């Protein structure tokens, strides 16, 4: 019987140096997953590659398929290099893992939205490469539905957790639409630059102030802003809506004295001062002045931590959803496994009865067409009645995962090899009486 498995490395099991060697570029995904499926002898395959994980989902009849996948991956990292860093899950655990990954429960930042898009890319690539069979197709279609359910029914994606996004959210709480708002970036700190870019992406106009004119020009070009000299700080503060301060100054750059003038010039129009510098650039007492909202790096980090803690709390509810959906998927899969056996049983019983019909029909003295129609109806009814009890018990055994009972049925009836491993062709043909009918007609 074919087994579903996942084998991979993630931020939890491997260093970034290893993951970056394994990472596959999006444009190379279809070709790589096809080569992988061929090399490892997989019936179905799907390769997820992000900066935090590289993992292969596969379906194969042979037990050493995960080992072959590992060997394929080690072509880039060296033999034996992955043994200590890979994780492997089988069947229901592999499905659960796929659901958790798509729902961002296994992400470095729980609830981050990018992973779902990356898994969808992997699904498209496997489909384009022709290695996405019915089982992985079903598993990942379900994974996308589970991810959607988790996002809509829990708060796992609620609240922003990056400093620059939080600064942007707060600016929106004060000003609403940020399009056309003036954002002042004071200093050249990396985090400040990131926050300013975030605001610029929302349509804000960016002005970059720096002690060095060259650095201001350079930063302005990088962020899509306009350079200004640090001597223009007071006049720019009077005009801007948001000021992001991230200088390396040892003293306050935005002082009480400066802001008293600025606030008067602004006529108490609100200003949002984001102080990401350590030591701080903005005198914290300014936060008490009318129209001034001052948030330092600790305030923003506190919000990030609260949001992250909230997401973790919500993750418990999300795990429940994943568990329920995993059980439902496994039940569906067991039913799919039983389908060939059920079809085979019906075929066998009906075949026996049909053979007896063919032997008996010539000896009957009535109208052969009418007799055949009546006896075929009888065969259908007899097949149903004979198999009602055994099939109900078989389905129950399937739901329980009782392999012994299923094997006993296989042993009792000579159903043929295809009923035990035909997961890839579950829709077996119903036995037909047409050839026999042809014979009679002739």
């Amino acid at each position: 019987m074919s087994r579903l498995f996942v084998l991979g490395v993630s931020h939890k099991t491997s260093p970034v140096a290893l993951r970056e060697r394994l990472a596959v570029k999006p444009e190379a995904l279809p070709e790589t997953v096809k080569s992988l499926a061929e090399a490892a002898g997989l019936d179905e395959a799907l390769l997820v590659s992000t900066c935090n994980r590289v993992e292969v989902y596969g379906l194969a009849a042979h037990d050493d398929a995960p080992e072959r996948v590992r060997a394929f991956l080690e072509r880039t990292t060296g033999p034996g290099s992955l043994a200590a860093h890979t994780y492997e899950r089988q069947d229901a655990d592999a499905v659960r893992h796929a659901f958790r990954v798509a729902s961002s429960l296994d992400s470095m930042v729980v609830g981050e939205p990018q992973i779902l898009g990356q898994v969808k890319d992997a699904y498209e690539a496997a489909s384009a490469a022709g290695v996405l069979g019915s089982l992985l197709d079903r598993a990942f279609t379900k994974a996308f539905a589970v991810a959607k359910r988790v996002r809509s029914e829990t708060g796992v994606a609620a609240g922003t957790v990056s400093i620059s996004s939080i600064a942007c959210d707060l600016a929106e709480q004060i000003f609403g639409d940020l399009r056309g708002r003036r954002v002042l970036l004071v200093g050249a700190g990396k985090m400040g630059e990131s926050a300013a870019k975030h605001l610029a992406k929302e349509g804000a106009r960016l002005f970059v102030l720096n002690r060095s004119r060259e650095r201001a020009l350079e930063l302005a070009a990088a962020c899509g802003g306009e350079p200004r000299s640090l001597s223009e700080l007071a006049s720019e503060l009077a005009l801007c809506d948001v000021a992001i301060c991230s200088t390396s100054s040892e003293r306050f750059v935005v002082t009480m004295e400066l802001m008293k003038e600025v606030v008067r010039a602004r006529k108490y129009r609100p200003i949002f001062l984001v102080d990401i510098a350590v030591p701080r650039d903005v005198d914290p007492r300014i936060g008490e002045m009318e129209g001034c909202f001052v948030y330092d790096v600790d305030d923003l980090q506190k919000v990030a931590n609260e949001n992250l803690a909230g997401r973790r709390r919500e993750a418990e509810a999300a795990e429940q959803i994943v568990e329920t959906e995993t059980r439902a998927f496994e039940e569906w899969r067991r039913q799919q496994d039983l389908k060939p056996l059920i079809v085979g049983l019906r075929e066998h019983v009906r075949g026996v009865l049909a053979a007896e019909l063919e032997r008996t029909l010539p000896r009957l003295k009535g109208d052969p067409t009418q007799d055949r129609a009546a006896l075929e109806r009888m065969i259908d009814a007899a097949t149903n009645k004979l198999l009602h009890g055994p099939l109900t018990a078989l389905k129950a055994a399937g739901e329980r995962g009782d392999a012994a009972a299923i094997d006993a049925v296989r042993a009792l009836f000579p159903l043929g090899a295809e009923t035990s491993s035909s997961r890839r062709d579950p829709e077996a043909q119903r036995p037909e009486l047409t050839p026999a009918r042809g014979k009679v007609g002739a």
Partner: protein
Amino acid sequence: MLRCAPVIVPILFGVTALAYLVASGLFLAFLLRGGEALGRAALGALGAGTISHLVFLVAPALSAAPVLALDIRESLAVGSLLVSLAFLVTTLTPRAPSTRLSVLGAFITPVTLVFFLGAGLHRNVTSVPEGVRSALLPVHVGVNVLGVVAFALAFGVAVAYVVQERQLRQKRIGGMLSRLPPLDVLDALGFRFIAIGFPLFTLGVVSGALWAVRLDPDAPALSTSQLVGLLAWLTFAAVLGLRVGAGWRGRRAAYGTMAGFLCTCLLLLGYVFRDGSGVGS
């Protein structure tokens, strides 16, 4: 149907008051706890209350020829309906300045409820005697009602501004902060309501003064209610003037709006509990 209209009126009053009470509770719960379902339920309850309110006003006219009483109770009944309608229109219009305006119902619906309950007090009050009626009276009452409606909406927005500003200052991120509209949107909306209400209220004050002088030229220069009305007018004039002239906005403008509206409420309260017709400036 026409005959039973007077019987229905007290029932409609009770249903309307109950709907406004439920809507106020739901809006408050929505503000404090969030949840889209609560927000929708609150808007639904307010919508039901508004329809019931409209029927409450129209029903008596079905049984007899409509006569404008032009007293304070009728003004409050019409005014509270207009507050509710204006809020629903402002919130539900596709061109609303923010998608989060519905939460303002937590501050505006209680005002609607209080005005409506005020309209129900002393229902048997006599309407304005024929002798003191004048062409100026409907103008005086009409523009005053419209002015007070705009001020009631501005008041709700101002309270929301103060709450939102405090949340931001105390760095209480999430919760109420994320449900209330942005500060700048509240500030601009409050200004717009005052800019609409002030000219109407001014016209109401002027027409009232003219009518009072015509009614009794020997009356004292300023009665208590006239003094309170003038105080309300001066407060709103200051809020508007300082905003336009000196650029005052934000918290100061919000407190000014709240003070002006409280003066207006004092004025209305004086009329409600005053003996007689409740007419006069």
